[in-house]
């Protein structure tokens, strides 16, 4: 008996795309997302290159498509525990972690005022604090609050939020539950994690406050980020006069991520435009090995060079030193064209950390093959489990969407073959 339904694991841009493309072609689709909201990493991006447009715009369209489509069901806070069966007929066990807030939540926000517990805001990579009960971010879809329950326990709060909620939406005792789905195909699109910059100890991330990562800068530039959109030095909140971007921080590196992460060059060029807009006179340097602005992205590279007045330094940044008196950072590099080892001082240094596939740390609970960096080998392993997006290759958003669209068709083929 054919099973036309498809489970998409991961509700980021790849997962949402695969789900929508399949659903709009008539399939029943489930999305399982581990965060309390859909949208994944792109929700944390301020602007896309090369258009410099806000990702929330496209996400809004996609959420609208989800709202209007009766064939899509999604689960947040969901993880896949087990997969059995074969192409055309998979039994999947999902674990739904507790949100501690039920469907009665209207999103009114009264609970937040009452909540006495502050936690690091994961959405902003811990650069600011939020209440233990919170809306994950402004555009959170679904617009439901969530509780970081371990923080409540630690603080010994018995549920001040529950006391003020008029709609009985808060359930401090909510338990995780499991549910079973039977589907014809699975699209695995769990995306990527930023490479852990702590592993690059020569750059001082974690020791020097003014060394941040590219994903952090993205939040700093966002109007709804920890600094209200102002790019400033984390150590003292001061405006910056100079900034350095360190490319291949972990990527193209046999000791770290062996592959090139594909997006970091363009991301840093984009970040240069953020900085230039806020600081017309700031010095912006990019330390690079090769600038990889492939295809039509070359136009963006050209434009940024012309308009943002960026100094490109051919030479990977070797080390970063901190002047403890003022938090200034010295980037030491071999400027190959100038034929000298340079030591330049900056207010802020951004590490262009790359993409580690999520499957490097959380493998698919099925027979699948992985390459040496943990990316899934396409076409190998269990038939009927299709991979999409950055679990397969390090991809920019447009390429990930393309890939996810292709994956949707392959999933449909699996449901057809399974007949």
């Amino acid at each position, binding site marked *: 008996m054919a099973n036309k339904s498809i489970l998409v694991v991961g509700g980021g841009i790849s997962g949402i795309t695969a789900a929508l493309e399949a659903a709009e072609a008539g399939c029943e689709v489930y999305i399982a997302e581990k965060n309390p909201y859909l949208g994944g990493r792109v929700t944390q991006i301020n602007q896309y290159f090369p258009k410099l447009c806000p990702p929330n715009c496209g996400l809004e369209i996609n959420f609208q498509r989800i709202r209007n489509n009766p064939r899509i069901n999604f689960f947040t806070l969901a993880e896949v525990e087990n997969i059995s069966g074969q192409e055309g007929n998979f039994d999947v066990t999902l674990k739904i972690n507790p949100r501690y807030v039920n469907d009665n939540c209207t999103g009114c926000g009264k609970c937040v005022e009452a909540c006495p517990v502050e936690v690091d805001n994961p959405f902003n990579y811990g650069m600011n604090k939020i209440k233990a009960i919170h809306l994950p971010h402004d555009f959170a879809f679904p617009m439901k609050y969530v509780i970081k329950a371990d923080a409540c326990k630690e603080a010994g709060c018995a549920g001040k939020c529950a006391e003020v909620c008029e709609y009985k939406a808060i359930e401090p005792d909510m338990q995780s539950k499991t549910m079973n789905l039977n589907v014809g195909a699975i699209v695995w699109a769990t995306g990527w994690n930023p490479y852990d910059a702590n592993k690059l100890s020569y750059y001082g991330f974690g020791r020097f406050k003014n060394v941040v990562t590219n994903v952090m800068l993205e939040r700093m530039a966002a109007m709804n980020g920890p600094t209200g959109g102002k790019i400033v030095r984390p150590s003292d909140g001061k405006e910056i006069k100079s900034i350095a971007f360190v490319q291949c921080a972990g990527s193209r590196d046999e*000791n770290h991520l062996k592959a090139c992460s594909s997006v970091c060059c363009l991301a840093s060029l984009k970040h240069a435009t953020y900085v230039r807009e806020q600081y017309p006179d700031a010095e912006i340097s990019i330390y690079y090995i090769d600038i990889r602005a492939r295809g039509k992205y070359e136009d963006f590279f050209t434009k940024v060079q012309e308009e943002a007045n960026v100094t490109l330094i051919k030479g990977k940044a070797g080390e970063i030193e901190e002047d403890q008196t003022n938090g200034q950072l010295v980037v030491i590099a071999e400027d190959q064209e100038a034929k000298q080892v340079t030591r330049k001082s900056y207010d802020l240094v951004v590490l262009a950390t790359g993409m580690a596939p999520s499957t490097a740390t959380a493998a698919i609970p099925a027979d699948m093959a992985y390459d040496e960096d943990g990316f899934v080998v396409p076409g190998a392993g269990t038939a009927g489990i299709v991979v999409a997006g950055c679990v397969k290759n390090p991809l920019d958003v447009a390429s990930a969407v393309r890939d996810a669209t292709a994956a949707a068709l392959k999933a449909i083929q699996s449901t057809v073959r399974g007949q």
Partner: protein
Amino acid sequence: MRYSYYPGCSSEATAKANAHSIEGVAKALDVQLEEIPDWNCCGATVASGVVGDFTQLVVTARNLAIAEAKGQDVVTGCSSCYMTLAVANKKFKEDEHFRTMANEALSAAGMQYNGTLQVRQFLDVIYNDVGLEKVAQKVKKPLKGLTVAGYVGCQTVRALPYEFDDPEQPVFMDRLIEALGATPADFPLRARCCGSSSTIPARDIVLDLGYKLFESASSGGAQVMVTPCPMCQLNLDAYQKLVNRKYGTSFNIPVLFFTQLMAVAFGLSPEAQALKYNIVSPHGALLQFAK
């Protein structure tokens, strides 16, 4: 806990303090070290520059071949010896072609090595096998109020990077210093090179690097520096005077083997503390602890 022990050439000369303090500390911690019979020089990082990597590794492996009969992990207290032994060992384990060739060479003396052992540093044994808890229990004279720069040096953590600790900013030495009741100094250059192999032929390299290390350690408030490496210890101890002469500084930082500091904290005998070998006198800094 029993290990085969590779003392290394310096243990008989410039680094007697290392040998004595290792012996004392091992005993105190119930660690049995059995010296590898008739061991030979590992060639350090120098021999390969004359005879090539292969010959050097085979020469080193002679020691492993002898030790293999006992089947115990090989422990050394010298970072350079560790590097050559560990790299050779890794080659034997992972590179089949090398293993075959190397055994052909070893067989010239009727020997062979199958790559069955582990090569360890004494520091690794203390940290991972003995454990800092036991170390702390043995402390009789907690080094309260003493600020210590834990100078790990270069090869200790980078011979096989990431296998032991972060190769750039290792933490184990600081944890050990804490276990002894002392305070680790803020010392960002803890794993930078002291230039040891250039001591004789290019002394200025050594003096310049030494200066940077002393500068960093003293601005971190260090009263004493400890190291696991005989070359570092020699360099920084014996040449401190020349550094001061060249840079017009007045550093006076005693440089001890970490095992010497342990011996002090454990209240072991003066033989085990072996402080008489130190050129920059540690007595001032350690007055209240070394009785």
